[in-house]
């Protein structure tokens, strides 16, 4: 039944409607693919039995003529989304055994639309990382390999399990979250589509918090249309998230007209950094040509603060993380390490054993930049620069309707590479982080292969709450690129 695992959501939806196959058949094929994908370590928890139950319920609804929009569509869920009664770890040792008594709003919306849960996907610990090597559950392997080179590559991160599973055909699509590039960069590294919606488009309720002013959930799919289909279900106002936008959810699929004639596409000159690899620059140029050929007008724009976005992010995100992660204290959930006599000793021992090296670094940086005497110099300064970064985008969007950039400065690298130097790892997100700081929507679409045969993505950035233009332009790139290359390993 491997043909079933090759379907997109749009195709599966049609096949299910026409009764060419049942949800149970579809889910059985994917359960088998999940099993075959084990060597990638993309899953932390697999839920094959629950998936079959959900498939049967979907089939029953369809039989009585009450099918839902995503009925029977098998998805993987990043292990940052709380799922009722199902282990939720955030990739961390400190959440050992945590089975949430509630369901995140985004996953609840997916289940309410009939989607099926195949399992929980591996990720960088607390979504802190760009290579999925910081997970307590071990690194995820990218299903792609360089031809003639058997070294395992990273899938990117932090939604690395999601990207690897979608690329390997182990799930039809997946949820991800993106705080500084965690949907778009792994989507780029694995040759799939990843959409980070506008801050406030999807509810953050029930998603384990990393940096609350930046975190946003989004779909990771094989096509732009599938991203539109999934986003329509994931999005929407939620009174339980005070930053969730009280706006209607547009018909995102209807935006995929392919008509971008007259659209102005901003090309930020500051992104043309010295040392940008020639093949990335070439792909970017190719993207501009594709959009021109479709009738759009490229315009040069200036995002003057680009170079300061990463250092700003690495003050704001750790500050928010140090506050959010204070809740992991060994008292209410997860790991507890009892050493010494006092409560403080229990806290310190629990957090020392429960957090990995990158999380500890960021919590400590965050603690420092928020501490008395340093708050103004670091945290307040970063918040002011953030305002300037957001202002840059606001000014740029006076002159353009969408912005085109590369997704990441390189293709996937080998597991273990760049792991000695935190800052070298942070540079992966140089093109994606500014978008989070400004709260804007961005999509990564696979656009070509690097000289060593690995996928490269292009990013389209839009105005706040204009995912429709982002999807439309992304769709044009997808059609022009006609990316059909497949990874070295597929599970279905």
């Amino acid at each position, binding site marked *: 039944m491997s043909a079933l695992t090759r379907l997109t959501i749009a195709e599966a939806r049609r096949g299910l409607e026409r009764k060419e196959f049942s949800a149970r058949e579809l889910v059985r094929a994917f359960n088998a693919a999940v099993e075959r994908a084990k060597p990638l370590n993309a899953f932390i928890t697999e839920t094959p039995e629950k998936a079959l139950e959900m498939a049967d319920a979907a089939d029953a609804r369809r039989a009585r003529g009450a099918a839902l929009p995503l009925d029977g569509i098998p998805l993987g869920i990043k292990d940052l989304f709380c799922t009722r009664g199902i282990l939720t770890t955030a990739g961390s040792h400190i959440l050992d055994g945590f089975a949430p008594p509630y369901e995140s709003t985004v996953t609840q919306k997916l289940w309410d639309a009939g989607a099926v849960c195949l399992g929980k996907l591996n990720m960088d610990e607390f979504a802190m990382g760009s290579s999925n090597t910081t997970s307590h559950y071990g690194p995820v392997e990218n299903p792609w390999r360089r031809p003639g080179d058997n070294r395992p590559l990273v899938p990117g991160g932090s939604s690395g399990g999601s990207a690897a599973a979608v690329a390997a055909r182990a799930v039809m699509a997946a949820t991800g979250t993106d705080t500084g590039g965690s949907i778009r960069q792994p989507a780029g590294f694995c040759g799939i589509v990843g959409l980070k919606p506008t*801050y406030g488009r999807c509810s953050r309720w029930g998603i384990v918090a990393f940096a609350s002013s930046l975190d946003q959930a989004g779909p990771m799919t094989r096509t732009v249309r599938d991203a539109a289909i999934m986003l329509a279900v994931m999005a929407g106002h939620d009174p339980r998230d005070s930053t969730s936008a*009280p706006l209607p959810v547009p018909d995102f699929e209807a935006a995929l007209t392919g008509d971008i004639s007259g659209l102005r596409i901003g090309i930020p000159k500051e992104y043309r950094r010295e040392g940008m690899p020639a093949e990335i620059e070439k792909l970017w140029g190719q993207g501009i040509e594709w959009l021109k050929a479709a009738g759009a007008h490229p315009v040069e724009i200036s995002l003057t603060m680009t170079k300061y976005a990463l250092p700003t992010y690495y003050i704001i995100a750790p500050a928010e993380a140090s506050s959010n992660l204070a809740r992991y204290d060994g*008292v209410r959930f997860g790991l507890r390490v009892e050493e010494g006599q006092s409560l403080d000793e229990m806290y310190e021992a629990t957090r020392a054993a429960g957090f990995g090296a990158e999380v500890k670094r960021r919590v400590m940086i965050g603690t420092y930049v928020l501490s008395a005497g340093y708050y103004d110099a670091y945290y307040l300064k970063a918040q002011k*620069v953030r305002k300037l970064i957001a202002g840059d985008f606001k000014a740029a969007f006076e002159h353009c309707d969408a912005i085109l950039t590369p997704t990441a400065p390189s293709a996937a690298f080998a597991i273990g590479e760049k792991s000695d130097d*935190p800052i070298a790892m942070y540079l992966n997100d140089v093109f994606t982080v500014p978008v989070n700081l400004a709260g804007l929507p961005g999509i990564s679409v696979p656009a070509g292969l690097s000289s060593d045969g690995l996928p490269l993505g292009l990013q389209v950035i839009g105005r706040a709450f204009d995912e429709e233009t982002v999807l439309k332009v992304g769709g044009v790139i997808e059609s022009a690129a006609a990316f059909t290359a497949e990874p070295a390993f597929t599970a279905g």
Partner: protein
Amino acid sequence: MSLDKSAVTHIATLARIRVAESEKEQLVAELNGILDWVEQLGEIETEGVEPMSSVAEMTLPMREDVVSDGNRRDDILGNAPGAAHGFFTVPKVVE
């Protein structure tokens, strides 16, 4: 502003993370590496710029001050590493 070992020890205490003496040297180097790198923000003139804490251009919504959830004691205690008689348990804090 460069951190030394005693500063890192203080930060670790504030963050409630035990750091072994043998790990401190490396942490000093790593944290200073990151702080040196973020210092470049000092190049930017930000006099009079309003700090931005959120991109959501809205005031926090109000709701009725009524109980909307509750009576879930056992659900909440279900994940506790230690619980007794309907309470979380912690090491003794008073003599």
